[in-house]
């Protein structure tokens, strides 16, 4: 199913417009901020907070994927490159109303971890978030910067959870964040392997 990326954009736009339930962006940002602060108070360790955020995201992702599939009716992707396009243009658009820029690395043979699949040319992609609804109004204090907090780490978890439910084990990590004084906010998604549990073969 080789749907051109233009079409994904249209699907994403359409979903965003026709989705009925929306929530005030400021409420969303403030709630998330409060959550992160609470975690920092509870764990008193930024590394642990990152981990917990990722875990929360994972649990969200494993459930959110159903919502995504039920409404978007996009089928199975033919390769990981397409996954990147769908995640950015349909997924991020329909849930957060942003469309991160997808960058695919030039095809290289990745060293380890991807033996099972015969050839996986594009087994990672980078998402560059031009804006980040989670980080609205946020300024990280010195302490959090030194502690290495990834404020929006929940996104990593969501992606990992969602993709795992459609038989892709991925590793997701932040490369940079404007909150830390970087130029851009970048996420890297790396495909580890395709999971082989009763893979429902491509519909249609």
């Amino acid at each position: 199913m080789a749907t051109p990326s233009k079409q994904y954009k249209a699907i994403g736009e359409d979903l965003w417009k026709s989705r009925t339930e929306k929530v005030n962006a400021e409420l969303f940002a403030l709630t998330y901020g409060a959550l992160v602060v609470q975690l920092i108070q509870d764990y008193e360790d930024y590394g642990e907070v990152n981990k917990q955020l990722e875990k929360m995201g994972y649990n969200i992702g494993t459930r959110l994927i159903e919502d995504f599939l039920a409404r978007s009716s996009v089928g199975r992707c033919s390769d990981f490159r397409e996954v990147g396009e769908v995640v950015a243009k349909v997924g991020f658009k329909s849930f957060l109303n942003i469309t991160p820029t997808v960058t695919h690395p030039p095809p290289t043979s990745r060293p380890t971890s991807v033996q099972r699949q015969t050839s996986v040319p594009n087994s990672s992609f980078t998402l560059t978030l031009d804006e980040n609804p989670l980080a609205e109004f946020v300024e990280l204090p010195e302490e959090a910067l030194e502690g290495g907090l990834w404020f929006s780490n929940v996104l990593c978890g969501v992606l990992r959870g969602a993709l795992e439910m459609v038989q892709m084990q991925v590793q997701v990590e932040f490369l940079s964040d404007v909150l830390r004084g970087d130029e851009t906010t970048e996420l890297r998604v790396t495909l580890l392997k395709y999971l082989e549990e009763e893979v429902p073969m491509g519909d249609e």
Partner: protein
Amino acid sequence: MVVFGLWVINKAGGLVYQRNFTDGLAQLTSNEYLVLAGTLHGIHAITSRLSPTGPSSGAQVIEGETFKLTILLTVTGTKFVLSTPLAETAAESILQRVYEIYSDTVMKNPFHTPEMPIRSEGFDSRIVGLLGSGQS
């Protein structure tokens, strides 16, 4: 629109939801439903392997003399099975709606454990809203 019954089968083949929507249907015991749903899960897997033309989906419609089963398999492996009269043409779009309701009321319910039987009033009431109450 006439619908006899709806099943939801988890990815392991367990029946997590079953409901009838028409009066006077032959009743099975809950144990029989569980066994038959598990069998259907197996049959579905077999049909996808039977494809002579490479990878294919499993059976999407199974017809009998008086009824048909329409099966929607989601990418995550959950199956929605709708049993209707032969003449029902909207079964597929109904299943798509059921999937949406499922994603809203079941998967987004933090108290629901994935892969476990669905006991959610919200799901029940929206399904009844979609398909009518029947009896049971």
